[in-house]
């Protein structure tokens, strides 16, 4: 117990809001449910900011590192002799940083939704689910041990499921929710197996013990090998599968684009800023184990991240649904974060990638939430997701336009916006470690600028469309969050992350390496320039380009047919070639055997029932013959 015990309230307040609003859903008239939810989260946000201030500034002794401390812990269940599941609250730089990110974005989304979701059926239900999500996500980042994280990991998954399927009467929404849940569940299977292996070999779930670089846990990890890699490396790879599922890394990314079926504020909160970075957070949380115990696993992380960022960026250039463009952009950016973790080392300057990853996570949360909420405002105005049905909206939606532009510049890495700083650190980390990945990331930076400005021009410039009714700017409850997030996107780049969030808790000196930064700015500018030429005015150019790269375009447009592959595996193979035969086997072989036994008995009885003829004389004859036979046997044989 410590002076941070009050932090228990941060997750618990949303939980109580969820229970209360959820129970009384149909009785809460009008916006009451939303207001309760927003107020609850407002308190949580305030407490988080207070915690951040207290942890990073007030309680911090200058010159020392940041230590992690447990604010609260209780024993929940004795799992085995050695393993105990605790629930508690861990305060350390990354968890405090995540607290700020989650509560900020969540609070903004709560306010925004008061306008966006107005008049929807089940308004209170929406807020109940949002609160459930906030509770689970906060519980996840505050987890003191791996198992608590898994518990909240699952809860986050289910709240995401409930929110994607919010419009449950729309079949596409529910099937998207189902897909998201099952894909992440499959990844969680990997996570669980990883936990099983890791906890068995180290005898603990506790993060503090696991990640202590001088502790028993890391020391005990050499151990047995399996297929060329140590057992711990396997465990870490399995755990990463879990993280990859939540963070939509290739090839477990297929649920994220579909998840855009949910209401837009949900996409902003869950599928852009918070839940999808849980995978990054997981790897960051276990980072010392990865860096010191299983460097091979870290390479996997880096390559998966790098590949995903490229893959998603290519697809993003071809999509026409504005939310899907943003979804692929999210995947690409998370790929960056993963890569950055993957190339990082442990401690001091070596840990640049770790710091950069968290930095990018922070800035990305701001600008991506902003992009999604901006897209929400656009959708709110024109009632469509398709960018082909938009154009020239800058006149109608001035605030949205400005904030969207800021966000686009931020993600494109143009200084002095925050994205520039965090992306630059990632590129620097990659440059120090792996030149191929560094090259990929350079290219992706250009692609990012291109597709973001393609989106921007298609929405706000281009030909003025004829709309059914004139689009109008969103109400203040929606634009204020946009402005606050825009403010965050602009200025969060100046936060001294290299002093606050580092792999070993100690700060280090960091400066911008202009040799890397200037080319990256140039790449961004080139991307923007190409997009300007192609999309600012409606020309035939885009079609021509698409025509030139016909097959490439077609593949990218269809997301490289990954969905179809999955569909083939699930529908054809699992359903038709496993489940159907199992059902058949059960009915005909197993049950058939049982029925066969019954049939055999029946057959036997039919074939001997003729003896029971009902004729008295026949019975008597058999009886007498038997008696005589017995007598004869008795007399002559025995």
């Amino acid at each position, binding site marked *: 117990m410590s002076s941070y015990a009050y932090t228990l309230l941060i997750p618990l307040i949303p939980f109580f809001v969820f229970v209360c609003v959820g129970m009384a859903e149909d009785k809460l008239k009008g916006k009451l449910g939303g207001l309760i939810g927003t107020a609850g989260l407002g308190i949580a946000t305030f407490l988080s900011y207070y915690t951040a201030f207290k942890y990073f500034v007030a309680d911090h002794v200058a010159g020392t590192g940041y230590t992690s401390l447990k604010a609260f812990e209780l024993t*929940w269940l004795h799992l085995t*002799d050695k393993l105990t*599941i605790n629930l508690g609250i861990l305060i350390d730089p990354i968890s405090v940083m995540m607290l700020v990110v989650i509560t900020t974005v969540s609070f903004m989304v709560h306010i925004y939704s008061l306008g966006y979701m107005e008049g929807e059926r089940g308004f209170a239900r929406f807020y109940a689910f949002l609160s459930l999500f906030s509770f689970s996500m906060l519980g996840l980042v505050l987890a003191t041990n791996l198992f608590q994280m898994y518990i909240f990991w699952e809860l986050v998954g289910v709240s995401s499921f409930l929110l994607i399927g919010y419009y449950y009467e729309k079949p596409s929404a*529910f099937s998207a929710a189902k897909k998201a849940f099952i894909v992440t569940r499959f990844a969680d299977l990997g996570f669980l197996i990883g936990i099983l292996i890791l906890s068995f070999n180290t005898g603990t779930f506790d993060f503090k013990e696991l990640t202590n670089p001088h502790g028993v846990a890391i020391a005990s990890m050499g151990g047995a090998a399996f297929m060329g890699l140590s057992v711990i490396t396997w465990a870490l790879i399995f755990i990463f599968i879990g993280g990859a599922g939540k963070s939509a890394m290739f090839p477990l990314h297929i649920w994220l684009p579909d998840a855009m079926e949910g209401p837009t504020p949900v996409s902003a909160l869950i599928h852009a800023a918070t839940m999808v970075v849980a995978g990054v957070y997981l790897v960051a949380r276990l980072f010392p184990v990865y860096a010191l115990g299983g460097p091979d696993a870290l390479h996997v992380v880096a390559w998966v991240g790098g590949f995903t960022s490229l893959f998603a960026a290519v697809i993003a250039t071809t999509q026409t649904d504005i939310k899907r463009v943003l979804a692929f952009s999210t995947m690409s950016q998370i790929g960056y974060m993963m890569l950055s973790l993957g190339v990082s080392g442990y401690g001091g300057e070596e840990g640049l990638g770790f710091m950069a990853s968290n930095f990018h996570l922070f800035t990305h949360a701001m600008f991506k939430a902003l992009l999604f909420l901006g897209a929400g405002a656009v959708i709110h105005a024109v009632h469509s997701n398709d960018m082909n049905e938009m154009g020239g909206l800058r006149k109608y939606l001035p605030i949205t336009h400005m904030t969207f532009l800021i966000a686009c510049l931020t993600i494109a890495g143009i200084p002095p916006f925050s994205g520039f700083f965090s992306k630059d650190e990632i590129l620097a980390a990659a440059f120090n470690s792996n030149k191929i990945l560094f090259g990929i990331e350079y290219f992706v930076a250009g692609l990012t600028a291109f597709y973001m400005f393609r989106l921007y021009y298609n929405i706000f410039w281009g030909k003025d469309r004829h709309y059914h009714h004139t689009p109008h700017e969103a109400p203040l409850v929606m634009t204020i969050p946009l402005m606050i997030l825009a403010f965050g996107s602009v200025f969060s780049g100046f936060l001294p992350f290299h002093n606050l969030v580092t792999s070993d808790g100690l700060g280090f000196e960091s400066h911008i390496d202009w040799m890397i930064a200037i080319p990256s700015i140039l790449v961004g500018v080139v991307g923007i320039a190409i997009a300007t030429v192609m999309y600012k005015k409606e020309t035939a150019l885009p079609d021509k380009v698409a025509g030139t790269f016909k097959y490439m375009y077609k593949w990218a447009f269809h997301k490289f047919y990954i969905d179809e592959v999955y569909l083939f595996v699930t529908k054809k193979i699992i359903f038709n070639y496993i*489940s159907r035969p199992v059902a058949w086997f059960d009915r005909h072989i197993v049950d058939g055997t049982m029925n066969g036994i019954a049939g055999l008995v029946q057959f036997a009885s039919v074939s001997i029932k003729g003896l029971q003829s009902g004729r008295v004389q026949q019975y008597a004859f058999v009886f007498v013959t038997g008696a005589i036979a017995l007598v004869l046997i008795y007399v002559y044989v025995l």
Partner: protein
Amino acid sequence: MNILTLFVVIPTLTIAGILFTKDLKQSRMVSAIGMTLQLILSAVLVYLYISERQAGNMAPMLFTFDALWIPSLNIHYAVGVDGISVAMIALTGVVVFAGIFASWKMEFLSREFFISLILLATGVFGFFISLDLFTMFLFYEIAVIPMYLLIGIWGSGPKEYSAMKLTLMLMGGSALLMVGILGIYFYSAPAGSPLTFNVLEIAKHQIPIEMQRFLFPFTFIGFGILGALFPFHTWSPDGHASAPTAVSMLHAGVLMKLGGYGAFRVAIYLMPEAAHEQAWIFIILTSISVVYGAFGAIFQKDLKYINAYSSVSHCGLVLFAVLMMNQSAFTGAVIQMISHGLMTALFFALIGMIYGRTHTRMINEMGGLMKVIPFLGVVYVIAGLASLGLPGFSGFVAEMTIFFGAYEHVDTFHRVATIVAVSSIVITAVYILRVVGTLLMGPITDKHFLHLEDANWYERLSTITLVLGITFIGMAPFWLSDMIHFSLAPLMAKLATIHLPGM
């Protein structure tokens, strides 16, 4: 009177009371009163048990009572409970209570229906309190026989076929069990001492290993048939599908648990050496059960079939855990029994209620029900999430305890089996979400459904009781797991005397 004997006396009195009633209203009222008393009694028992333990009573069984019944065979009426049986009794109390309210509108031969239902419950309660193998077997049979009547008379679909199949297969199990129990009896004491049926007495003595090898499969399969052990599970889908709601609830919720409990209390406890030797065969079978049941459920279209296959999978996990033979796995097995009991009872109750409204159980004939029957829809989603092992509900605690317990074995065989079992969590998610999606989500497919009414008070009472049970265990598993943990001490001590790796 001994408090445990009351668990048999109250249902008996209730049955006697029902005999004097005239119509549905009276008989259901008498049953409801009787089973409410029983539920209260279960709660009292839990309270007494915990306070007794806290007072420092370390006896393996509490509230024991012993009376000689048949002297020539040394058969006793011996009762006593430990934490495990207390938990099972509490489960039974809750499920029977919910079951009575789920059959509130049983118009056809209502008196006889409630009599049979409560007779079945009597058998189950008696089974859980018994310490004497003979009385245990007797109560087991009392629980199985009414099932035939309940399905055959009040069932639906091919009810005679299902009732016959279920009864014959369970009777087959009883026959094997009889061999096992008699065998145990004849080797229950060292030469010269009187033979006994008392579990505690037998446990003090070591049955010769040759006899164990012979008797263990009989006993384990005998109980395993009731616990839906692959490939002896096929009575379960047909039986559940044809049975009326309350009977499905009781059968899947409680009666199938007799299998797991018996396998644990008799087969493993009395014959640990043979269990250890032969476990691998049954571990293979149960791992198959777990995955196979889940795959089987994906393909089904009838709600009750889906749930029956899901039960095969979940009960397979119980037996799987029992065979892992270490403390955590045993604890997990008991929690899983309770959790599955509550969950599956809830499922069957909901299926019955939905069927009562839509008159179909085929999922492809339904859709969009969430909009018209939100209460039942929400509870169905909760049951589904609990079933696929969401934290906060009991299924998660049980599964995790089992998986971690099973993974404690260091050899490859057990670990592969564990990972196979773990993979069921994904398959479970697939079929649960498929049902939830088709049944509740999407647009309403049939305009007749527009006028359906949501749950009545007695339906709400029945489902909320079960949901509370599931959430309570899910949120605060420690009291249950500690209660079980303590009661495993005698068994663990016995296992420790034989050298087993991985303990």
